[in-house]
């Protein structure tokens, strides 16, 4: 596919890195900063063009005439929208994706349509990350919570603790733990490596276990699996930027929220828009401030500033000073591995969250969602099966008869409102949402192909 990416910032670079790894993609990246571009070109096989990406002339130079897709990811909503408009009006680009950050635009759904602002898909990293963190706070013991089939099914990662019910148990007996709930262990990571969850596999201490179940069963499953953790009550957010502000607004009804913001103007603005949240003006890495605000009784401390290093250090400080659980927003992939080994409970990588949502639009064969697990070492894919037994390679077949690529497993099927945990004799029907796990990224193509319908279908 011929893809133009606008903006080589953090999001743009991550997307470009991911997409250029797939050989069928031809990428052109546009940015106003030549230095970032040169750096990108040194490491990736793509073309770069320096300039303002919403100008028609520049888009033409970038090959917009025969581009299949434009992804506008600059930090300006307005440039992104105009770029999509230009691509649509002048170059008739088939697919247009724009990053829109400001909630002001997102609130009006009618705004983004073919005859107004022609954006096919909107990516809003801040909202995605906010939602992601919200899930984590909602489920106190979860390391990662992912939605499938519009939230009907969820995948939760939990750590197996010493005195939890999971440890020492073989997977085949797992269902006895929670009677009446159908669930599935989809993946297990031990020391950062994925291991095959066969029926005889025994869970050890410190394993990260990915559980899959219908949304309504998730709280039961988690609480049964682990010694019940008290629900989170007191939350402290360090950094009241886009994410911090949105998150506080979302949570303030159900939780006691405190936000620490260093910029006086922003702090004033936050206090005006938020109702029951306490907005504190100050430095999140200041021990005195933390003590004064009872850091030791906080259930969750969440560092959400733009600065990786500040986030890591303030989280470590909060942990040392008694916060029960600390989370930190970390952009650099290298840091994530570094700190998640113990210093910080959960490292949140905004790119991984964003890219999952973006990849779903780029993948073919009716793949609706792709989520990276464990920072991309495995992926969870949701795909819709179409056609009938003769035109599709999955419909009308029992799971054991489907020729899956190596390393891929079908975990569950969502049929209408019903979540069906996959067994070897489950037969897939047309329009089922099939949820797969993949440990080898290179096999994504094969999965996509599997779900493509033969020509006869049309």
């Amino acid at each position: 596919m011929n893809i133009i990416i606008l903006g080589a910032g953090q999001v743009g670079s991550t997307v470009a890195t991911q997409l250029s790894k797939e050989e069928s993609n031809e990428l052109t990246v546009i940015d106003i900063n030549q230095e970032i571009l040169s750096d990108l070109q040194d490491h990736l096989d793509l073309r770069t063009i320096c300039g303002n990406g919403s100008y028609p002339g520049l888009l033409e130079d970038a090959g917009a005439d025969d581009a299949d897709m434009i992804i506008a990811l600059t930090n300006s909503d307005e440039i992104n929208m105009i770029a999509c408009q230009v691509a649509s009006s002048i170059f008739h680009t088939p697919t247009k994706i724009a990053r829109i950050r400001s909630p002001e635009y997102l609130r009006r759904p009618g705004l983004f349509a073919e005859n107004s602002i022609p954006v096919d898909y909107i990516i809003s990293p801040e909202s995605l990350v906010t939602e992601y963190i919200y899930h984590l706070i909602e489920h106190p013991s979860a390391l990662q919570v992912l939605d499938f089939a519009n939230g009907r099914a969820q995948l939760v990662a939990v750590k197996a603790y010493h005195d939890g019910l999971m440890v020492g148990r073989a997977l085949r007996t797992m269902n006895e733990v929670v009677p009446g709930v159908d669930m599935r262990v989809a993946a297990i990571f031990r020391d950062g490596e994925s291991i095959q969850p066969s029926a005889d596999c025994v869970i050890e201490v410190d394993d990260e276990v990915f559980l899959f179940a219908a949304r309504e069963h998730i709280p039961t499953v988690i609480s049964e699996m682990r010694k019940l953790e008290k629900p989170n009550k007191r939350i402290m957010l360090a950094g009241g930027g886009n994410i911090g502000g949105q998150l506080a607004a979302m949570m303030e009804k159900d939780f006691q929220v405190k936000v620490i913001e260093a910029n006086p103007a922003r702090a004033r603005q936050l206090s005006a828009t938020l109702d029951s949240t306490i907005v504190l003006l100050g430095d999140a890495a200041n021990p005195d401030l933390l003590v004064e605000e009872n850091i030791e009784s906080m259930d969750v401390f969440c560092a959400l500033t733009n600065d990786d290093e500040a986030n890591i250090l303030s989280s470590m400080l909060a942990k040392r000073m008694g916060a029960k659980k600390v989370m930190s927003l970390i952009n650099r992939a290298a840091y994530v591995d570094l700190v998640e080994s113990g210093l910080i409970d959960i490292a949140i990588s905004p790119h991984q969250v964003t890219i999952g949502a973006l990849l779903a639009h780029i993948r073919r064969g009716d793949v609706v969602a792709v989520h990276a697990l464990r920072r991309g070492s495995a992926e969870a894919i949701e795909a819709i099966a179409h056609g009938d037994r003769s035109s599709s390679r999955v419909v009308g077949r029992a799971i054991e008869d489907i020729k899956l690529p190596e390393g891929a497993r079908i975990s569950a099927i969502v049929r209408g409102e019903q979540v069906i945990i996959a067994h070897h004799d489950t037969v897939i029907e047309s329009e089922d949402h099939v949820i797969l796990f993949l440990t080898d990224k290179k096999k994504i193509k094969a999965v996509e192909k599997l779900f493509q319908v033969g020509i006869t279908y049309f």
Partner: protein
Amino acid sequence: MQLLVIQRILGLLMMVFSSTLLPPIVTGLIYDDGAILPFVEAFVLTLVTGFLLYLPVHQQKKELRLRDGFLVVVLFWTVLGVAGGLPIYLSGIYDISVTDAIFESISGITTTGATVIVGIDQMPHSLLLYRQELQWLGGMGIIVLAVAVLPMLGVGGMQLFRAETPGPVKDTKLTPRITETAKALWYIYLGLTIACALAYWAAGMSLFDAISHSFSTVAIGGFSTHDASIGYFNSTAIQFIAIVFMLLSGVNFAIHFTAFRHRSLQPYQRDAEFRTYLLVLSVVSVITIGYLQFNHTFDSTAESIIEGLFQVVSIGTTTGFTTAEYYSWPGFLPVLLLYVSFIGGCSGSTGGGIKVIRILLLVKQGARELQRLVHPNAQIAVKIGKKVMPEKVIEAVWGFFAAYFAISALMILLLMATGLDQETAFSAVAACLNNLGPGLGDVGRNFANINDPAKWILCLAMLLGRLEIFTLLVLITPAFWKK
């Protein structure tokens, strides 16, 4: 430095290169000239050497880094230059020495076109074609070809590509994927070559001569299958065709690409380098023709025009075809033409020399300094076309310019130390460093009569010229080798 990865790629490239010895073998069979054996021997030798290099390290599949790219390119050009001399030496033609065989090969592959062989007309067809083919492969760049046909080079391909492509700005890609860019360049190159061959053929050359000369014309090389070069044909039509194709090949291939894609001539008109290129050649042509006419060198005005134009374009683009004995032209003309060859072709073309864009930048930079004297506080950007050139590029151009002249001065001294006279030494360095071909004085006709040490120095000059000095020079800096 990832030496094993470099060895693997070198082995691969040698195996690919060995296949270029097949066309001469086929030619030998067609003409039954009895000179196939050296090619078969060289083919087997190159293939086996490449395979032996590749086999023990074939699993070293890491990405090439910046430094590795330089080393691969330099090693490859050097090794190929030497290996390319193999069939010439093995053929034993005119009892050729090792030095002469390697000189001939490097002169071919760097598209210089300086020859040490006299009596070309009597050589077997396979050997003649081989010399022309060497030029053709070297023209667009053998690495660019390798990038096009070996997709596994990946990002590393870009590192190689950059070390080989001529011009100050090397990041412009025609297409997003480097393999596709390399392919696009070779398609244009191939298209030009075919068009040129057909034109020559239609103008009365034999098919063999047409193909052979199209190779060296489009590559801006200058080898011919005759001692008298293009002059052998004694045809105005052929001279005219050569002028057109030399001009086209001296233009940045990226512009050909854009023009072809949009089916319009606008890209040429918009490109500042192209306009300067034409301007320089036109001005020098007018001066040359006027002076020839003034001195009554030729009998008729028409002859002055065609000979003057041909020689200016041939030397200005650094091709080096000759029809007249330009080195015996009156007054300042021979030296003027050599000076023009320093300017050379456009960046991203097959031409040699310093490249028009660099000269243009130097002139604009000079003008800026003058303006700064008048307006000390003025902010003045150096623009090419409508684009502002980054200061980094301008600095690099100054560095290049200084290195170019320092190297040529040094080489002139070295050549004079081996016993050459001043005119010969100067022109030989200019002819080799600019990848031009014919010089003045003792090297006006050919390079057969100079001593062996001088030939080796000139071999180095040709490689330096083709790889634009820095790619080669960086290898002798200690920083390059430090871990």
